[in-house]
């Protein structure tokens, strides 16, 4: 059965069975990717998939059922209704009705219209470029070009009919560099038209890998530290659940009672901007029209991120942060394009301001060594030891520990260069570099 026919059958059945409303979230993805190794294709993928997530509203409660087999609509409705009946929480979760969306400019980009062979050639040129940067490049661990197209349609019995199409293009390279027996790796990526920026992407990755050779720990202690934009973006991403209205209402974030209070240094402003040109979207995963939200303004917590349910509970409008971790997931709260607003300072100026301390270029283990409930972290890190504003040697095998709230509260300076991490699920999280004091380091 096709989507339209299946959807109609679902809605008819759901209403006949006594549901107040029903919604179909349909997503179709097409993707292509090629990974090259030593001048040849290593892995080549071409994919297509679709799936429909049915949400029914029964007695004011939502139940979900997802399928990739568009058959037997009665069974899917029965599953969703059974799930709705299981809900015990009393919170009302309304569905979005018919509405208008802002018109977004989605310029046609060359990166989206490349033929297969052009993408293969691009990957091959990225690999060649990486190997040409320095004789210490042994090979690439991966060198991939990917493109994708995602269609989302959200329809419900309240008249909502939202459609969006999103195109993506990504290139990523991870060179392996070798000095004697010491092997290192690092990656760099580009999105959209950036994928044609082959040489700089390659040089960036190789430079990061080479910078690590000969690294060793520093002694334990408390350090001033400049956290590179990419490392800070990764940390902000891991701590972003602290700004979820859902987690605030469930007592799963330390910010739960802090609206209107200072939670960060006044140099910190955090926004959620679904209109950001790289990832613009007209509506969220519930079909709510996009709005930009200032979450933290000059250090003061102004708003949590909300979907229709949490907004209703908080008595505010939705911030258009209804999210789905995948087409098969229930509606949750997720950031769109969420970032710390950059300041004015150049990297050199930040380095001078750091004076003596650590330049942290990478922090890993975010999924385990970091707790978005308590805000505490203890992570493996890499970087450079800095003396008198100049990097003197690479550092690895150290841990950095602290609390996110104290880190934000003690920001000494904010850099001017905003970096976004590789996008996931239609959004992206970004940060400039930040200079902080009081990072606890364990090492040698």
């Amino acid at each position, binding site marked *: 059965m096709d989507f339209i026919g299946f959807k109609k059958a679902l809605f008819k059945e759901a209403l006949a069975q006594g549901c107040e409303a029903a919604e179909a979230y349909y997503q179709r993805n097409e993707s292509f990717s090629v990974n090259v190794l030593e001048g*040849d294709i*290593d*892995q*080549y*993928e*071409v*994919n*297509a*998939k*679709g799936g429909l997530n049915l949400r029914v509203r029964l007695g004011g409660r939502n*139940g*979900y*059922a*997802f*399928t*990739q*087999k568009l058959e037997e609509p009665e069974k899917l409705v029965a599953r969703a209704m*059974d*799930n*709705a*009946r*299981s*809900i*015990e*929480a009393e919170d009302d979760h309304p569905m979005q009705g018919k509405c208008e969306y802002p018109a977004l400019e989605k310029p046609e980009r060359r990166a989206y219209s490349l033929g297969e062979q052009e993408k293969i050639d691009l990957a091959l040129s990225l690999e060649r470029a990486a190997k040409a940067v320095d004789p210490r490049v042994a*090979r690439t*661990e991966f060198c991939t070009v990917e493109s994708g197209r995602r269609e989302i349609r959200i329809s419900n019995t309240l008249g909502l009919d939202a459609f969006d199409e999103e195109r993506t293009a990504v290139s990523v390279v991870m060179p*392996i560099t070798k000095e004697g027996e010491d*092997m*290192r*790796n690092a990656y760099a990526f580009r999105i959209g038209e950036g994928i044609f920026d082959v040489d700089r992407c390659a040089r960036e990755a190789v430079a990061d890998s080479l910078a690590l050779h000969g690294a060793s*720990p520093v*002694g334990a202690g408390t350090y001033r530290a400049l956290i590179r934009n990419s490392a800070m973006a990764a940390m902000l991403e891991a701590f972003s659940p602290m700004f979820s209205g859902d987690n605030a209402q*469930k*007592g*799963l974030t*330390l910010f739960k009672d802090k609206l209107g209070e200072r939670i960060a240094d006044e140099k910190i402003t955090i926004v959620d901007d679904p209109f950001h040109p790289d990832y613009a979207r007209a509506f969220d995963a519930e079909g709510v029209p996009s709005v930009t939200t200032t979450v933290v303004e000059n250090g003061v917590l102004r708003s949590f991120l909300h979907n229709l349910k949490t907004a209703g509970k908080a008595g505010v409008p939705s911030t258009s942060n209804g999210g789905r971790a995948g087409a*098969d*997931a*229930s509606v949750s709260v997720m950031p769109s394009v969420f970032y710390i607003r950059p300041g004015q300072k150049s990297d050199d100026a930040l380095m001078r301001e750091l004076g003596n301390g650590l330049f942290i270029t990478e922090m*890993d*283990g975010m*999924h*385990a*060594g*970091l*707790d978005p*409930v*308590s805000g*505490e*972290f*203890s992570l*493996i890190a890499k970087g450079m030891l800095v003396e008198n504003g100049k990097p003197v040697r690479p550092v690895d*095998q*150290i*841990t950095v*520990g*602290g609390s996110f709230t104290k880190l934000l509260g003690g920001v000494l300076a904010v850099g001017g260069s905003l970096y976004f991490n590789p996008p996931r699920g239609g959004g992206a999280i970004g940060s400039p570099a930040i200079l902080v004091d009081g990072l*606890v380091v*364990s090492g040698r």
Partner: protein
Amino acid sequence: MIERRIVENVLGAALATGGDYSELFAEDTEKNVVVMVDGKVEDASYRRVFGAGVRVLLGARCIYAYTSGQDEKALMETAKAAAAALKGVKEHETRAFNALRKGDYAPETPYGAVGNAERIALIRRASQAAKAYSDEITQVVARFMDVDQRVTVANSLGVWAEDRRPRGRVAIQAVAMKDGDAQTGYKAPGRGEGFEQFRHYDMEALGAAAAKQAVTMLHAPQCPAAGAVPVVIDGGFGGVILHEACVHSLEATSVAKGNSEFCGKLGQVVASPVVTAVDDGTLPGEWGSIRFDDEGTPSQRNVLIENGVLKSYLFDYRDTRLMEHPLTGSSRRESYEFAPTSRMTNTFFAPGTDDDEEMIRTMGTGLYAASMGGGSVNPLTGEFNFAVDEAYWVKDGRIFCPVRGATLIGKGADVLKKIDRVGKHMWMAPGMCGSLSGSVPTNVGQPRVRVTDIVVGGKGGML
């Protein structure tokens, strides 16, 4: 079930442009999740994953194409999309299916026959027990997750394998809060069996254990930024250190391309002589067990390290084309959306002969890691990191106090050589392992072990 005739056509079409191996992986999987927050069910969902992937190999070159749905037209289009990556002419024919492998595992109580009420009743017991443990427990999130995966793998070499892989898990997260400070405790057992496994669960004890961990850590000082000290790691999920620090670097994914610190070391001493490490996908009912891997190869017990000597890597079929190695039944993927590659199943340090108490008594000053959290590794360099969810500072061989926020870091090849004690009683605990072919269920396990020194990260002063 897909008709054999269709599968033959698909495998043949996939070889039309010169591929030397083709494979079809078809999957029909049902999943249920129930989430309880603060004692009330907040979310209940059902998912059906239904699709197929076609893989074509030419030498070590891998082409993969997948589609949702399994009708003949979609499968043929997918096979043609894969074949389009090659520009040659047909050189290889498909062989008749002569290797029929049926993993006719049937759970006693399939999840499809279980109503939400039964799932909810279980997690409610744990949720209530966690909440009742202490006034300091401010929130409990309890989840029930079940999966029933049915797969069929067929390839042009004549293999036809079917497997059914039910698994179920409960996860209890307890949050303790006081005076603007918060800590969480987490317990999440599960097995590769049907709903019948939960008869044996003490849900109240599980809830209380998660709560105890949260409350203990709420009152614990920060772990010292101690540098390199002796560490005793308890059994069960403690085995995550073997998983991350070593076995990821033994996967063909890393080894076959020369991107592992363990390359070229078969037959060499890579660990202390008290270390024997095993990956065993055949253990009945375990979280990481499979009867056949996702290329249709029967799972097996692989001794990876025996008394300190490296004996085997973990290999999938494709990677044997890059490097000579026997198949180890290790080819896995999250779903049809991933080409398979070498992965772990149930991975553990085999039991040793040392006494659990003696390890701590004679360790001097260091850390006792009672409950490990997750970790990660860079297989190229072996650099790993783990969080310790529940840790205790040890002074002069005695447990001094609990400490929070401990992290262990190091390099895999170093840490294996520094294991000087291995206890007698081994047990395992489940986790989800993320890598190239997605997120797959794996067990980690070990008896209690001691490492002579490992860098302990934290943010407190000396105790």
